[in-house]
């Protein structure tokens, strides 16, 4: 729940099939698109070459990627954050000030701008200490939210989800053995897992020894299951990348060599 970043960490792959659909509809490629797809093809192969070993092609692609992605982040931050949230707010604050209305929520962004500048004081000798002020502000936000959001989104929700009846009845009022066992396993699993995380007790004896041992078993099964479950998604990614060659590259090859 803690807002981690303004950037979306999942990558949006601009649709292969979008391209294929356009081709289907009898679209002609522009020179830019032809060049673009060839570049994309080359870069794809460059990155894949790393699987064999580090080489000049990968080094080229890697350095280009770091440069381009850093540039990408800077440009989007400027356009999506600095422009609307800093310049935009201050401007609208000043405009309403000129109309005699003091909109504090807009004008307060001057303070944010000042803190941003203080952070840059790090570059000025003997003024570096000033950069800790905005940093402390950021850490303060993190820790304040860290307490309340974690409580709300994790602790209470997870406890709530773990509260299950230990005897499950079916509609006909007999005991549903499958669900009852499942509930027991979940409750014991969560409890033993938590006991595994005990720091102030040696993992010995009946309670802490056995339970923490069960705890580690449950954790390991959870890891195994999650691992196995993720394999499918990861293979899909590779399939998606292979479809790039079919849906984007191949039509462009045809267009390039006119066949």
């Amino acid at each position, binding site marked *: 729940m*803690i807002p981690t970043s303004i950037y979306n960490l999942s990558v949006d792959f601009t649709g292969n099939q979008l391209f294929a659909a356009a081709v289907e509809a009898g679209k002609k490629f522009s020179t830019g698109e032809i060049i673009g797809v060839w570049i994309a093809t080359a870069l794809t192969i460059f990155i894949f070459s790393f699987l064999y070993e580090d080489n000049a092609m990968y080094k080229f692609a890697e350095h280009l990627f770091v440069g381009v992605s850093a540039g990408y982040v800077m440009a989007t931050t400027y356009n999506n954050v600095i422009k609307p949230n800093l310049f935009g707010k201050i401007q609208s604050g000043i405009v309403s000030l000129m109309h005699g209305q003091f909109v504090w929520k807009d004008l307060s962004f001057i303070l944010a701008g000042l803190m941003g500048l203080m952070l840059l004081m790090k570059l000025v000798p003997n003024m570096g200490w000033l950069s*800790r002020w905005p940093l402390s502000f950021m850490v303060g936000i993190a820790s304040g939210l860290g*307490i309340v959001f974690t409580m709300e989104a994790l602790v*209470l929700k997870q406890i709530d989800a*773990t*509260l299950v009846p230990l005897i499950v009845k079916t509609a006909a009022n007999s005991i549903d053995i499958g669900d009852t066992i499942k509930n027991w396993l979940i409750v014991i699993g969560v409890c033993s897992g938590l006991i595994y995380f005990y720091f*102030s007790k040696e993992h010995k004896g009946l309670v802490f020894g056995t339970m923490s041992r069960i705890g580690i078993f449950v954790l390991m099964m959870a890891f195994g299951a999650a691992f196995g479950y993720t394999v499918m998604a990861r293979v899909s990614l590779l399939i998606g990348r292979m479809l790039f060659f079919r849906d984007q590259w191949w039509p462009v090859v045809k267009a390039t060599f006119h066949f």
Partner: protein
Amino acid sequence: MKIRKSVFLFAVAILTVLFCLCAQKAYAGKNWSDQAFSEKEGIAVVGNEDKYEAVYGISIPEKKVIWKVGMPKSHSVHIEIDGDMVILVALEDAGFSKNVKVVDLKTGKVKWEEKIPSAARKTEVFKDQDTIYFGVDQDYRDVMKAKVYAFNKTSGAKKWTPYEAMGNIKGMVPTQNGDFILILEKTSQAKGNKPAEKSIELVKIDKNTGKDVWVVPVKGTFASIPTEHESVVYFVTQNIETVKGSDGKETVNIVRSFQAVSSENGQILSTFVFADKDKPYGDPVYAAGNPVVVTEQGKAICFESKPSDPNKPVKWEVDLGAAPQSNILVQDQLAYIPTMKLDGENKVYSVVCLDTASGQQKWTNKVDGVPELPLIVAKDTVILATRITQGEGKGQTFQFKLQGINPLDGKEKWNGIADGKLENPLFLKDNMLFVMLAAKKGSKTVHIISMYDITTGAAKWAYETESVINTKLFVDEDSADFGTKDGFVVSVGIADGKELYKYNAKSELDTTIAASDKNLGFATQEGEYIIINDKGVVEKEMNLKPWFDMKKISILLGCLVLSAALSWYIYHARKGKEMFVRKIAGLQAIDEAVGRSTEMGKPVLYITGLADVDDIQTLASLSILGHIAQKTAEYDTPLVVPCCRSVVMSTAQEVVKESYLKAGRPDTYRSENIHYLTDDQFGYVAGVDGIMVREKPAANFYMGKFYAESLILAETGHSTGAIQIAGTAEAAQLPFFVAACDYTLIGEELFAASAYLSKDAQQIGSLKGQDMAKAIILAVVAAGCLLLTFEMHWVKLLFATQ
């Protein structure tokens, strides 16, 4: 010491109990429900629905909140003013019941309240002079049960034991003698390829005894809402029938029929099966007591209300030869229907007038443009609004045409044309017809309110604004008022269309506008109720947002309990109490890993994760970095920290510099080793992979928040032969670190690491506090599960956070 501990445990127990008690009352739930307004008293009743369930009674003449009533957790509150009472129903409770409160309009005193057990489905509310009836669905796993409750309006006393039946309530239809008909839909279980089947049951309930007078089962499901007219209930049903053809292929037909059931004795008066593909359009209308139905295919059928032969109920049937465009309007035995007919590729629109006694077509009048709204009748004129479209796609333009038609001969009396497209339904008051249009003006869209005099059809005035109008028009003696999307309330003079004032409410209105004594009252989305006078000057602004959000009480108490546990042990550790901490495998390997790097003369690589400093995992990681930097400084081994976030880089530089200073080696600190790469997830991974294969660090640390890249890092790191120690609280990434790294700090261990490494007494104390917190959670889980086992479901509500 012993005593203190028990005092502490006692305090925790008290807090926990308090938590339970308060949480049980926890309210959850953003918008205002539309305001109910009593013109007589000038009291507006508004309810804040989703967030803080409270209903406020606001007196507009007195300009203050006169009462407030708390409502339990719900999706919305239904508010209805009935004389000097306000009926409040909290609908669709996420729990197991619906809550009804009846309060006094003037004082807000709760006269009575009642909890009605119900599943999370619609409630039917039906009232007569002294009784309120509630129809609710109650879910028992696969069985749907319907129940009807009756309460005395003033005392809340149950009039009779609730009526019970199987099925879902689809409606409650009043009959003439005050009894009502309950309409139930029953669903059979789906079997294999056969979808679930539905059937209907009508039940007449005696209002005095709560017993059923008669029960009539009908095949199929509803295609229209049942209505009662002169002691007959009419409705359309549809039924899916599978027919096996000669070739063995199954075809599915929909059979629709018009049904009439006597509300006196439940006798099915008539059943009329529509011909194939005929589908009724809209609900039936009544002309001289007989229901008339028009089908989408353009047939108008009039039924006898009490036919002699139930299988032949049709009085007359005519083919309009055109499809209906909107509902029929009936006035003085004449029915008017806007229709559309295809003439080759062209669509021809016309208004057809039928004599309902004979079904004879009196006249047909062709109109240009597409009929937009159902017809209205005013001052002996049938008014038709049409849209005329020119061009296609983006260059499309629209015109709005209003026509007054003579009801007797269909001749046009007058018309008015304006540019634009109708935005809201027409609003008729006395002789004035208000029309709201949106028109393109250059690159902008303007919104226009215009007023037509319906006796002459002349457009009296038009008011133009760039703001989107998003409330209903409120018209009083001399002005028309409305709210706009950009947060203004505008008042326009009714005589000339001049703007009287424009009030900046700073936020969109969330309710309609109510008025009393020339003052207007409305609630904004900011949670304020504002009363302004006829000059557009604020009389009173009331902030109705509460000071404390009751739905978050469980979070507050949870925070207090855990913080108390933590602080208690930190405090005792500070006092010098020795505390034991078990070994954590991954942390003991740190020395080994740094040592090996030194031996091999290779650098140590440290990754702080992908999150910024607003993530506690990053802060925990930076703390661990401090300890590792001290080791590398002592051993004089280079430490490389590529960062994914600029702020983290800047902080990491400070942390590492400080550690080198502490180790007495500030000269060996290289700030360029702690550098920024890129914020982008995979760009960063590509860069780090490059560093790994080229600089070949002998020890890699991954501590902090990681996403899918975790495995790419760990696998590349492994291929270079480094010792790898990872730590993260991301449950989704732990499996990959566990599989690919030598040691992994799982979840909480990451946060414990800095305490463990620092050996600072307070930090160690916090670890003990964390254990206490876990013990509390274990106890709560154990107790909660037991309570649930004994069907005490309220325990779940304690942890509800929304």
